[in-house]
């Protein structure tokens, strides 16, 4: 389901607002995932605090959001943009790719929460497709 020109426009437009709040949005998305989907905590057993307020969650949430901003800035070559991260997730982190869907969901929740007027059904659709592409690119190097 490739991104249409309209999809790319929608993603870039909402991301222009989101990228400025990378740490807060990233912490929210990551913290909410850990809270609502406890299976995902298994990848963060080395964290002392898994709440949205946690310093560790903030640092890591920002990393995630900054990587997504990178993908938005290279929206015509998401595979290329995600290549190094894919290698990392495949061989070092070994996160089961099924979890990408879960974080994608909480990212959408957070976008809706912070930007309700901008997160129209069409923008929601575009972001859902974008995150699916990012997830796919992230899983490319696994096997």
């Amino acid at each position, binding site marked *: 389901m490739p991104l249409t020109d309209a999809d790319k426009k929608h993603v870039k437009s909402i991301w222009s607002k989101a990228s400025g709040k990378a740490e807060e949005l990233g912490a929210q998305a990551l913290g909410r995932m850990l809270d609502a989907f406890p299976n995902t905590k298994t990848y963060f057993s080395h964290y002392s605090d898994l709440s949205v307020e946690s310093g560790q969650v903030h640092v890591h949430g920002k990393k995630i959001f900054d990587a997504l901003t990178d993908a938005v800035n290279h929206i015509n070559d998401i595979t290329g943009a995600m290549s190094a991260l894919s290698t990392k997730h495949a061989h070092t982190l070994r996160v089961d790719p099924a979890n990408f869907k879960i974080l994608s969901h909480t990212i959408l929740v957070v976008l809706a929460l912070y930007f309700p007027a901008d997160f129209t059904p069409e923008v*929601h659709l575009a972001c859902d497709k974008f995150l699916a592409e990012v997830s796919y690119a992230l899983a490319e190097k696994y096997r």
Partner: protein
Amino acid sequence: MVHWTDEERQAISSTWAEINVEEVGHQALARVLVVYPWTQRYFSTFGNLSNATAIAGNPKVRAHGKRVLDALGDAITHLDNVSATYAKLSQLHSEKLHVDPENFRLLGETLIISLAAQFGAAFTPDIQAAWQKLMAVVTAALSKQYY
């Protein structure tokens, strides 16, 4: 039987008290039809679903959204026995409507997103977690009579 903590019950009922059932039902269903357009396969009698504007303005979508949320209210009233409460509804979806249960998951996720848009920061992580659990329970109950 599902174990609900007092906090979870409180999170669910306090959010539910603030929801305009018709409005949220409409938002959630309209979003599903836009974001996952293949779901329109179940609504061939609804008339014009050709674009997001048509879907948003479609009175049948609005009416059906309310129906779905009213049914959710039923589950919330019977949190300790959602399975039994939904037995007939599950059978209906399986034997008459032939709805792929994957759609229950999609609607559940979309409803959560609609709630986030409505409530903003008031839709805290803990409240979201309780609602995610509710959506999982509802999905399981609706899927239970499939064979």
